[in-house]
């Protein structure tokens, strides 16, 4: 009954979205307030309807309604409650429901929140948001319907892939989608600006809060995803340049560029065309990411069951949305107001150079991610572009950004003074040298890239502290920049640490002791334990270095329903390093029963995620500030 209601609600939302994409457009062109208000009502109604569908699906998951195919394929009665809830969006169909839920949420926010935005602009933005909704609701109902029933219902389900049975699933996809899909609001507003004649150059300020909100969530979602891959997937890394990771990084990079250009546009009326183009590109990259993930066109750890019909559908949506917006841009760009000019050495100049590097990095990333596809399409065979390419191209492009981002905040708007700005860089230079010296002292001079990154991180952190000190009377007004830059600096230091990772693999049996990388490891005990829906062997290890004495409990788990084994890593984080211990399957070695053990030391790893979260807070601080400044 509830699932039927959900199905009906989503079907109705498709119809109402169609109305939402038409009525406010007429309202805007006829200056008819009533039609504009209808558009706002429709946006709210669509959110409520999609939420009904989403929670109906969640209800089916929580109550083990195996007559719903989606539940039968992805759940099991013994699955813990948390994973029944998060299992709602673990499958393709469910994750698309989450996608549309967030899309309509942003539609409702555009309808409700802005106070000072011109009505015409809002009406047109709502219509564009409605059009995207039509596309994706049709996608769900026609190719990925999560409400399909089977009769008779199976007695139990097939369970969820154990890799996905992790608290990370609760935060990572919703956070990521809030960012990814949140950029739809920026896209809609940019399209609305392009449709509206005689706009003010500074109207870009209405984009700002939506950029900050989406970007903050995207930063948070990527950070969570990286943390999850690091500790749950048991690979011991935090970034793999996997196509699906790249799919999230692409809109993040162009979103970061947009974040900076929108400030120049909002404050100074500069770079308006560029800001609008970036708005279109950023959401297009979100759509491209959705296409890459959902079509399974690129082999990735993230793709499960795929079906080409879906790929064609998302590609068509991408083509219509981006193609349409770019034609609109082409037709209207020359009529947009010219912004104010600025000197090359100025705050705007700094933003522009930063934009140049970040956009080049983004284009490099897109090229690398799509290259295997392009080559295959041209008949050049199958290749895979991996970490060596991205490390070799992305790092040199992003390092200069770090040096500029430390320096540029000390330049004045319109025309800056280099000497004056340099005078503020004393602490930054000091921290840069300290970080390099500390790296040399702790790890020796093996890795040139490690020092450069450590130095760059120290530079950015030092510059942010100086910046905060100079603005100590106006911390709130400068919070987005201060937090954003500080977080990036901290994360970069953490990333630099990964250059010095120490990885050891060996075999042990219970009672063995071993000295590895300065640590004394003892395999004290092994016990059979039973989890809610898995069986496990749990090892007890003591790891000692000097006074530092820690007990770790890695597990080798077996999930019977999916007949899948999984290594559950034991982690001990502290301020300077993570200790990471993974237990392998039991091996019969003559009469002995041995286990493969992986012991890794990840210097500074926790800084990556702490930095990521601080950066995301910068975005949210900007949202809070926009309310105060009435830039909404």
């Amino acid at each position: 009954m509830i699932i039927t209601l959900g199905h009906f609600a989503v079907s109705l939302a498709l119809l109402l979205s169609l109305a939402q994409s038409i009525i406010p457009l007429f309202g805007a062109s006829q200056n008819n307030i009533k039609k504009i208000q209808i558009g706002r009502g429709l946006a709210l109604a669509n959110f409520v309807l999609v939420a009904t569908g989403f929670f109906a699906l969640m209800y089916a998951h929580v109550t083990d309604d195996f007559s719903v195919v989606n539940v039968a394929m992805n759940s099991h009665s013994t699955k813990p409650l948390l994973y029944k809830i998060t299992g709602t969006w673990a499958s393709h169909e469910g994750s698309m429901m989450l996608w549309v839920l967030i899309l309509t949420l942003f539609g409702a926010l555009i309808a409700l929140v802005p106070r000072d935005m011109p009505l015409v602009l809002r009406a047109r933005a709502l219509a564009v948001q409605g059009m995207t909704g039509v596309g994706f609701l049709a996608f769900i109902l026609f190719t990925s319907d999560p409400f399909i029933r089977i009769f008779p219902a199976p007695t139990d389900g097939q369970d969820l892939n154990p890799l996905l049975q992790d608290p990370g699933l609760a935060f990572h996809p919703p956070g990521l989608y809030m960012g990814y899909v949140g950029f739809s609001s920026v896209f809609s507003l940019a399209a609305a600006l392009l449709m509206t004649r005689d706009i003010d150059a500074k109207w870009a300020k209405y984009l700002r809060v939506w950029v900050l909100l989406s970007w903050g969530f995207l930063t948070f979602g990527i950070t969570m995803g990286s943390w999850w891959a690091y500790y749950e997937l048991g690979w011991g890394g935090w970034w793999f340049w996997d196509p699906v990771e790249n799919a999230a990084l692409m809109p993040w990079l162009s979103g970061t560029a947009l974040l900076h250009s929108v400030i120049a546009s909002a404050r100074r009326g500069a770079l308006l065309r560029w800001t609008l183009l970036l708005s279109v590109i950023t959401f297009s990259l979100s759509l491209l990411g959705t296409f890459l993930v959902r079509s399974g066109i690129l082999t990735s750890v993230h793709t499960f069951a795929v079906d080409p019909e879906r790929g064609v559908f998302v590609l068509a949506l991408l083509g219509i949305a981006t193609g349409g917006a770019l034609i609109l841009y082409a037709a209207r760009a020359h009529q947009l107001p010219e912004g104010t000019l600025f000197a090359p050495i100025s705050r705007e100049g700094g933003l522009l150079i930063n934009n140049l590097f970040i956009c080049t990095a983004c284009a490099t990333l897109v090229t690398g991610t799509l290259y295997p596809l392009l080559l295959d399409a041209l008949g050049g065979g199958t290749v895979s572009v991996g970490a060596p390419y991205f490390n070799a191209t992305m790092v040199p492009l992003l390092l200069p950004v770090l040096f500029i981002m430390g320096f540029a905040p000390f330049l004045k708007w319109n025309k800056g003074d280099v000497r004056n700005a340099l005078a503020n860089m004393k602490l930054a230079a000091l921290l840069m040298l300290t970080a390099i010296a500390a790296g040399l002292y702790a790890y020796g001079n093996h890795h040139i890239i490690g020092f450069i990154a450590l130095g760059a991180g120290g530079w950015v952190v030092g510059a942010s502290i100086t910046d905060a000190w100079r603005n100590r009377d106006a911390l709130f007004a400068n919070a987005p920049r201060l937090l954003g830059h500080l977080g990036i600096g901290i994360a970069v230091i953490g990333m630099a640490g990964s250059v010095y990772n120490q990885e050891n693999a060996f075999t042990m049996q219970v009672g063995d002791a071993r000295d590895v990388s300065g640590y004394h490891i003892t395999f004290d005990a092994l016990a059979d334990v039973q989890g809610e829906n898995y069986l496990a062997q749990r090892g007890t290890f003591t790891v000692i270095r000097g006074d530092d004495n820690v007990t770790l409990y890695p597990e080798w788990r077996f999930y019977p329903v999916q007949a899948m084994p999984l290594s559950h890593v034991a982690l001990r984080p502290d301020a300077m390093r993570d200790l990471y211990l993974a237990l392998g399957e039991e091996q019969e070695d003559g009469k002995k029963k041995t286990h493969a053990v992986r012991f890794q030391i990840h210097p500074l790893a926790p800084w990556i995620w702490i930095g990521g979260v601080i950066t995301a807070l910068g975005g949210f601080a900007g949202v809070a500030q926009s309310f105060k400044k009435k830039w909404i």
Partner: protein
Amino acid sequence: MEKSKIKAFTPFIVFALLVVFLVIGLHHSKPQVPKFAQHIGDTAPVTDLPILNGNGARFTTASWHGRPYMINFFASWCGDCKAEHEELMTLAASHLPMIGITFKDKADNVTSYLGRVGDPFIAVAQDDNGRAGIDWGLTGVPETFVVDAQGIIRWHHIGALTDDIARDELMPLWESLTQQ
């Protein structure tokens, strides 16, 4: 047109080229390599499905007990199924008893699809709601299974069949099964 107007079209042209490549890529893309869910060695799940245009006749795994056979899950909406169809026609010519199971498809679409590309199957069973797909542990379509005379799944292939796979894996297995 003015120069600046033409320049404004650059982003669109770049994007249009990208879409062309993606369309080509979509039709070239390789089937995914399975990561888990192998059912080789298990007893084939009990399956009872209506036969397409069979006037109420049904396909059951029980009725095939004592004979080896091959099951091919496919759908008329699936691009990779079209890609492997020629291989299926070749296999049919070598008298391999193949049962097709249509996955989440409509009878009309399947009938017209098979009318167009040829029908290699001795029977086509309909799994309209995907229930049999769940029992067989499908990750998508096409997927192919070989079941021996004792009703044990001996082979499971995810993705389109090719000449190489048929020659190196399927046919040697099939010969060993029929010689027993």
